[in-house]
Each structure stands twice: as structure tokens, then as C-alpha cells.
């Protein structure tokens, strides 16, 4: 049942949309909205990262670097130079895409742990630059970012807006933006996966040498997916900057890179809806553990460790294999009969 929903692109996205529409029924205060917006933005980033890690099998331990670059590009372009938000997001995405392409060409030749090392290094270098170019970025203290502005509209979390005659608060409006972006990000990723590009990427994960032998241009596809996932991170970074109104170099930190990759792995590598679940779990876990106070960090580490030991494939894929799936078994039997 669960598996079937996930298998169909349209139904999966519709289910996601429905959940997003009905979720606010459980929100009691603006803090819940803010939490949901944050989860949504990070989840969309992780959906992009999953294309690289889950489908192409290339590890990135520096992805927060691109998120941070996107955030600072938007912040500096709109805040310091007075650009409008959308052009800043687009220009930021292009700039980060170019950076990713230039960096990606040489480092994607590396394999396994060497690739993780190189991506880690790239992320670190970006974070160090953001931290030290004080004139531009405000240094470790961070910088403030103006609210998101679309066609003359200013979207601030403190504002009040009316939509189709309905009075809504700033956080509610932001929730809609984040929700729509997450749905678009998911839809786009699912389409890439089902396209010839997606098949090429999966062949890379299976065996890079074999993919090359049967004529897949491995370098091209690896660079492409690296750029796509970096652009995802850049756009969501820019959105995040507008939402928070204040950014620090921590957005590009190694810690955040680890958080992103953890979401992918714990949710289920290669499962688009799985990694969204991963983002939800990892973002909400600290809230749930707040009662443990001092022990919060240790509990977080313990849960992470135990989950990965007992569910090495991640939450959603494990859940899928546990939920009995009679219809799928039947379908397999039918196929087996017709071929055998």
C-alpha cells in the first residue's frame, strides 16, 4: 500500500500536498508554523542532495557550503545592493551552479572516502571565506536580510495579509510559500529520477565502471547531478535567508553538512519521500528531546546510532518492507507466471 503510493509520481506528490494542506490543523501557535517552514525549506534542500547521494551514489559532506553560498548571495544582493528577491535567487542559483560545476569536474573523479574528503574540504573553505570576509558578510556575527519581496509584495513573518478575502498572518503566508516550494522541489526531483538522466544516475550507483562500459558518459552525469543538487541548496538557502531575516556562517558549516547528509541516510537513501521524512525527524528530534536537557546531545547521538544500526536502509524503506504488501506480491506472481 505505502509502496504503491510512493511508486506513483503523481499520487505521491498529491499525498504530500494533502498532508501539507491539513497539517496546520495541528498547529497551535506561530512557533509550530515557524518550525514547519524551517523543516520544509531544509527538506527541499535534502531532496536535491538525495539526487546526488541516493541516486548517483556520490557522497557529499560539504553540501551546506552551497546552502550558505545561496543564503549569502541573496542576503548581500538584496540587503547591500538593493536587488529584488527573485532576480537575486536566480542569479545566486546560476552563480552557485557555476561554482559547483567548476569544483565538481575535478573532485567527482574521486571515489568513496576521497570524494567525501574533497567535498568536506570544499564546504569548509566556503564556510571559512564567509566567516572572514567581514566587509561583505559581516563575519561570524552574521548579517540581516530583508524580507522576501515578490512583485512589490513584501512577505514578512511579522506581516498580515489577505488572501481571497481570508485574513492570514505572516507565518501562515510563509508556510504556504515553503509548502509550495517543497512540492515543486519534490515534483522536479521525481521527474529527473524517471527521466533518462535518472536511469543514467542509477547505473552510476550500481557500478560506475559498468555504466561507463555500456556508454554512459559518467563524468557528464556526475557533474550534472552535482550542479543540480547544489542549485537546490542555493535556492533554498536564499529562501531560508529571507525567512529567518538573519544569517550566520553556521549555515555553511561542517555541522550543517552532516545534518543534511544524516537526513538523507536516516530517511532512506534514494527515496524522495523517505528523505523528507528524514528531514522532519532530524529537525524535530531536538524539540522532542528538549526535556532531557543536558543529556539532549547524548540522546540524539544514541538515537542516530541505534536507528542506523537496526535500519541501515533508512526509515521509509524499512517501513515499506515491514508493511505487508499483498498486492505487490500478487503482481509479482502474475509476472512470474507469464514469463515462466
Amino acid at each position, binding site marked *: 500500500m505505502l509502496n504503491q503510493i510512493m511508486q506513483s509520481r503523481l499520487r505521491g506528490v498529491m499525498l504530500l500536498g494533502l498532508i501539507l494542506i491539513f497539517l496546520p490543523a495541528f498547529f497551535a501557535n506561530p512557533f509550530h508554523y515557524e518550525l514547519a517552514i524551517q523543516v520544509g525549506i531544509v527538506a527541499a534542500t535534502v531532496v536535491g542532495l538525495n539526487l546526488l*547521494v541516493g541516486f548517483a551514489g556520490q*557522497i557529499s559532506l560539504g553540501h551546506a557550503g552551497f546552502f550558505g553560498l545561496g543564503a549569502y548571495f541573496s542576503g548581500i544582493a538584496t540587503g547591500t545592493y538593493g536587488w529584488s528577491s527573485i532576480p537575486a535567487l536566480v542569479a545566486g542559483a546560476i552563480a552557485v551552479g557555476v561554482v559547483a560545476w567548476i569544483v565538481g569536474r*575535478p*573532485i567527482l*573523479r*574521486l*571515489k*568513496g*572516502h*576521497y570524494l*567525501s*574528503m*574533497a567535498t*568536506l*574540504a*570544499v564546504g*569548509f*573553505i566556503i564556510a*571559512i*571565506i564567509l*566567516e*572572514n570576509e567581514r566587509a561583505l558578510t559581516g563575519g561570524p556575527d552574521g548579517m540581516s536580510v530583508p524580507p522576501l519581496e515578490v512583485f512589490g509584495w513584501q512577505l514578512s513573518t511579522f506581516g498580515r495579509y489577505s488572501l481571497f478575502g481570508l485574513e492570514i498572518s505572516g507565518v501562515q503566508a510563509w508556510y504556504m510559500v515553503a509548502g509550495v516550494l517543497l512540492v515543486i522541489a519534490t515534483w522536479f526531483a521525481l521527474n529527473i529520477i524517471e527521466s533518462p538522466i535518472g536511469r543514467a544516475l542509477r547505473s552510476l550507483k550500481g*557500478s560506475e*565502471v*559498468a555504466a561507463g*562500459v555500456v556508454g554512459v558518459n559518467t563524468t557528464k552525469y556526475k557533474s550534472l547531478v552535482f550542479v543540480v543538487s547544489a542549485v537546490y541548496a542555493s535556492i533554498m538557502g536564499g529562501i531560508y535567508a529571507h525567512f529567518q531575516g538573519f544569517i550566520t556562517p553556521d549555515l555553511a558549516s*561542517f555541522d550543517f553538512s*552532516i545534518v543534511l*547528509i*544524516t537526513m*538523507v*541516510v*536516516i530517511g532512506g*537513501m534514494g527515496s524522495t519521500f523517505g528523505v523528507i521524512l528524514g528531514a522532519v525527524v532530524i529537525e524535530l528530534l531536538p524539540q522532542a528531546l528538549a526535556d532531557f536537557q*543536558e*543529556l*539532549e*546531545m*547524548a*540522546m*540524539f*547521538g*544514541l*538515537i*542516530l*546510532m*541505534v536507528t*542506523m*544500526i537496526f535500519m*541501515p536502509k533508512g526509515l521509509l524503506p524499512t517501513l515499506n518492507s515491514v508493511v505487508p504488501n499483498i498486492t505487490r506480491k500478487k503482481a509479482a506472481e502474475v509476472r512470474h507466471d507469464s514469463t515462466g
Partner: protein
Amino acid sequence: MFSEFLQYLFTGTTIGATYALIALGFTLIYNASHVINFAQGEFVMIGGMTTVALTGMGMPMIVAVVLAVILASVLGLALQRLAIAPAKQADVVTLIIITIGASIFIRGIAQVVWGKEYHSMPNFSATQSLEVFGAVLNSQSLWVFGIGAVLVVALVLFFTKTLSGKAILATSMNKEAARLVGIRTQVVLMLAFMVSAFLGSVAGIVVAPITFTSYDIGIILGLKGFVAAAIGGLGSGVGAIVGGLALGIVEAMAAGYISSDYKDAVAFSMILLVLFFMPRGLFGAKVVERV
């Protein structure tokens, strides 16, 4: 001019020797199990923090050091038994996340037990520093070099002269064949994690008087060890030592001649540069990929 250079060289080799010890720990575990242990830095932290805490309770230095090293080695063993062994079928990334989870767990406990403050530790010997051609050589640096050299010699003897050492080597070369000739590879893995934790904790203890220590010092020291191991080529012992020293020296020179804000950026650029030209590090083994 020369004394300045010499000064940076002293600083660099001292911290580089520490990196080398941590990198050797990475190398050992990588060879035995092909796991990159992101909790390696926590052994370094445990070494330094336990020694500080125990001497603070009035225990003699030498006893504190021995207990700290034993604690770290037991932790290494526990990590292998409780976290790595049960997940043997897992992906590379999954194993990375498991060791990251373990490191967060250990750090979280350390923070509860020892607090978040920075702690200092006195030098091992009363002599504060020597002067060599106008450059100051901290007496602790000599301890770092000395202990590092002794450990390297001990490791070489361990791997070439003892049966356990040879068993680890055999397992790293071919696990199946090693098992066929009667080597208990599970025991070898435990041994590798223990020796690795031992090396890390010693590095943490000898460097504590120079850099201070705190519950979260393992993150950055562990990363530097990983960088050093990758520069040298994962799995190469010589590579780990060369990589560690090179990383330390480049960092110190960058801090001195360029800018201390960018010293880490220089270190990370160095690893990129090395990997661009030598995708398997300086001394990494060539492998043939089977399809």
C-alpha cells in the same frame, strides 16, 4: 627571518606529529575494516579530558595518563562491538553516520560529565622552553616528538614481529583469505579499534598542555587526522605520518606568513590540490576495480 621560519616549523611539526598519531588511528581502522571512523576525534578528547579530570582530583600524572589510555581503548573496543559489528552489511555512508552518531553520543556524555569549559594541563616537565637559533621550542614539543617516535617504532615492531600485528596486516590485505588460514578476523577488528583508540588518546594527552582541551575538541582534531590520512593515502602508515607532519607544517606556515584566519582554508586547499593530482593521496595503494 630564519628564527621566524624555525619558529613556525617547530609549531607545525609539533601539531603535525599529533595529527600523524590521529591519522595512524584512522589508517589502522580503515585497513582492518574499510570504515572511516568519524568518532576517532573523541578518543583524542577522552585522552586529554580524562587526564585533566583525574589529575584535578589529585591523582599523580602518570596514573591519570594510564587510566585515560585504558578508558579510551575500552571505548574503542565498545565502539567496534556495539556499533560497527552489528551493522556489517551497511553502506559506506551508513557506517559514516553510525560513527558520527557515536561521536555525538560520546561528546554529549563528556559534556554532562566534564562541563563545557576549556581546561588547561601543565607541561609534562618543569622546564618551560628552550631557545634554538632565536626560536622558542616548548619543552612539551619534545615530549610530543619523543612519544610520537616511540609509538611509531612500537607500531612497526608490532606489525612486523608479533603474531597479532601480522594478523591485522593479513586481514587488511584479504579478509577472506585471512579467515581461511585461521585468523579470527572479529578479534583482529576489535584489536584494530583498540590500538586506534589508544593512539588517539595518547595524541590527546600529549597535545593538551599546548592547545588546551575541552569536550568538543575531538571534532576538529578528528577532522584534521582524517585530512592527514587522506593526504597520505588512506591505508598507508607512512602516508599518515607524512600527511600529518605536512598538514601541521603547512598550517603553521600559512598562519604565520599569510593569515591565521585562513590557516584552515590553506590546509583544506592543500588536500584538494593533492587529490586533484593524486586521487589516492601521496602513498595510496593502486586498486583494480572489479565490475
